[in-house]
């Protein structure tokens, strides 16, 4: 049940989806995979929106070079585990939200355990090997996978839903090698914020999702464009799912 204090806190958004929508957010458990630039924006907006449980998984510690974009952290957090610093910050932001910070590596042999009973995965990773593992787990569990990525002045975001859309392996069949990437903070903020918005929309049913629609953000020309996506019939992850259905 939503308390009077919660009604007060969430009044502006409950105008959009009512008490019932807010209760759905409170009952939701979301995995945010990665606590970097995308994760900072996504976690802050999801915590502020009153998602019941945020499970944040990241293996890293805060480095000075993170601070141009990872606004969950400050100078005093350098060297500290990201999930620990993030949990402390988010608990101050909204004490009603349960934060589970797990300093773990997302890999094939850990992912199903890490996803657990979460009802949605937010992709805030910085590499495609990890994203592919999460994509496969989302399909195995039958839960949405909100994909976001950034590089330089550019970003992309889309929502994959098992049984309804293409999957990440349709769009990026082979994971490129991990490497350091240039990026400005605001692009992480935009993409991570859209990922949070998709999550809120999914749980509340407030609006249509970015299903089979890749948003491409161009921070040079300041435009956002839509690229329609189609599932690949031979995709080894979602193609098999469609066959089974």
């Amino acid at each position, binding site marked *: 049940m939503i308390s009077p204090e919660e009604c007060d806190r969430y009044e502006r958004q409950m105008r959009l989806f009512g008490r019932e929508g807010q209760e759905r957010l409170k009952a939701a458990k979301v995995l945010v995979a990665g606590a970097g630039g995308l994760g900072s924006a996504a976690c802050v907006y999801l915590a502020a929106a009153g998602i019941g449980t945020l499970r944040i998984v990241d293996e890293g510690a805060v480095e000075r070079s993170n601070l141009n974009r990872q606004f969950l952290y400050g100078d005093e957090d350098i060297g500290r585990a990201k999930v620990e610093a993030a949990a402390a910050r988010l608990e101050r932001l909204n004490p009603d939200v349960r934060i589970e910070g797990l300093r773990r590596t997302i890999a094939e042999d850990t992912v199903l355990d890490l996803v657990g009973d979460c009802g949605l995965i937010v992709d805030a990773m910085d590499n495609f090997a990890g994203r592919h593992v999460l994509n496969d787990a989302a399909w195995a569990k039958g839960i949405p996978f909100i994909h976001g990525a950034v590089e330089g002045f*550019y970003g992309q975001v889309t929502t994959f839903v098992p049984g309804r859309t293409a999957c990440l392996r349709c769009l*990026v069949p082979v994971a490129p090698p991990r490497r350091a990437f240039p990026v400005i903070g605001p692009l992480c903020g935009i993409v991570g914020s859209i990922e949070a918005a998709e999550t809120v929309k999914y749980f509340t049913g407030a609006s249509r999702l970015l299903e*089979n629609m890749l948003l491409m953000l161009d921070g040079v020309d300041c435009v956002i464009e839509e690229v329609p996506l189609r599932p690949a019939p031979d995709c080894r992850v979602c193609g098999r799912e469609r066959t089974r259905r």
Partner: protein
Amino acid sequence: MKLKVRFFATFREIFRARETDVALTGDATVRDLLERICATPAQRGQVFEGGELKPYIIILKNGRHIQHLDGLATRLEDGDVVSIFPPLAGG
């Protein structure tokens, strides 16, 4: 046939266009299209490696990755929209 090619991310800087219309004749393939649009060695170097497609480039024909079709041999048809971009990997 007439095709629309859309460039995204850094490919906009390399190809100096957000999108372009391309006319091809006969039974054109994705390879024919790429040969046409890669006008400079720099553009070609972004797309090809030893005559084959560079790994990891994303080329969608009407929203479907050509790797799930016939790769560079994927046939094109009048009105197709081809989107080309590098993978954005950061987070």
